[in-house]
């Protein structure tokens, strides 16, 4: 594994809580790595599993999904759908030989800028240690 490996992580952040949290991290001048490419979605429930698979197919090293805390969803139920979807998706990714740490679901409220910064720090470090995602999958025609 290269010492200069910089992970690319795709972050799906819900508009109402997590994106606000990331925004607060920025306006509070908190330091966190630039490895997360943030995509704002209206709700963590909007994150179709296809998006996650597509991110990996295009070479992302990790995917971070952040939504409102349980009970706080702007659309009342969206984050519960995500809470059910992600564990099964992680199980499915493991069947594809993709380490479970590469997909992470976390709840971040709009007031938790520090939590968001710490989370990105932690995930970036973890994936840096794991090394790049093997996007082509090996094999002569893989």
């Amino acid at each position, binding site marked *: 594994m290269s010492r200069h490996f910089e992970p690319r992580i795709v972050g799906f952040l819900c508009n109402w809580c997590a994106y606000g949290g990331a925004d607060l991290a920025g306006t509070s001048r908190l330091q966190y790595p630039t490895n997360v490419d943030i995509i704002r979605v209206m709700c963590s429930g909007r994150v179709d599993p296809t998006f996650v698979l597509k991110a990996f197919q295009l070479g992302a090293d990790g995917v971070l999904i952040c939504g409102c805390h349980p009970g706080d969803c702007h659309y009342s139920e969206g984050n*519960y759908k995500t809470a059910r*979807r992600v564990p099964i998706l992680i199980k499915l990714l493991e*069947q*594809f030989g993709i380490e479970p740490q590469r997909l992470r679901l976390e709840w971040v409220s709009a007031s938790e800028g520090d939590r968001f910064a710490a989370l990105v720090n932690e995930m970036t470090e973890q994936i840096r240690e794991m090394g790049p995602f093997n996007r082509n999958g090996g*094999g002569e*025609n893989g």
Partner: protein
Amino acid sequence: MAKPKIALYWAASCGGCDVAVLDTNEKILDIASIADIVFWPIAVDFKYHHVEAMEDGVIDLCLFNGALRNSEQEKIAKLLRAKSKVMVAFGACACFGGIPALANFTNRDEIFERAYIEAPSNDNASGTLPQTLTKVNEGELELPEFFDTVSNLDQVVVVEYFMPGCPPPVDLILKVVDAFATGQLPPAGSVIASDKTLCDECDRTKEEKKITRIYRPHEIIPDPKKCLLEQGIICCGPATRGGCGLRCIKANMPCRGCFGPPLGVIDQGAKMLSALTSTYEAKEEEEIARLLSEVVDPAGTFYRFSMAKSLLRRKRPVPVEVGAK
């Protein structure tokens, strides 16, 4: 005028697609009367060299079933493509990989190890594995190369039409033959099936879906009038193209997804995962853990027929240096 020429081929398949052609019963005679069958390994005695001797583009319609799992199948796919005007991916395996592509959850080495070494019926003390070339006194013997990854047909050659199904139903086969005979084939790239999902065509009673437990088909006798998904059986209808005539549903069995993803969907498994988890009633951690334990094999269930065409396509090899700096 000479009769149009039809070729049929089986690659990595079970033979069911060929049987489906024979299931057209007396209509098979109509097919034989409007066209000459110039190549059909299961039924007529033409060899590869007969096809090789033909001029390019001389075959009018080629119905190709099966996935591509070895070099012989790939070679014949390319050969038939060159000789055919219209190439049809016939059946789920040719369209999306089908059951053979589930082998993409493993690899060549593991398959050889299991099939030729581990399996209890083997008597192979010397650990002999298939070789592409073997030297014997009389010369060299050749076997097709076994691929690590199974492909579907349009990953190797250009395909005009896709006719999904395991196997394609007789009415769709006759529809294609009729369209071909009357010169009314749809635009290239078309899928010969419905543009709706299976759920859209299903006539069972559907209410609000709130599943509290997932049953495997042998654990429950389902109500034949009620939506199977609502009864807790994983039915792939929400993420599967319709047009199959509801064969499984009418037999009180859940849809397994052999018609592949519906119009506009690129990854059938992801959509089915999404549909199932959206309808399951679970909020607390222990309820979610129960859901997780009830879906025993998510990848195998959601990608049963569409693995080769899925976004990730195959299992990644386990990295040697997990956690190493």
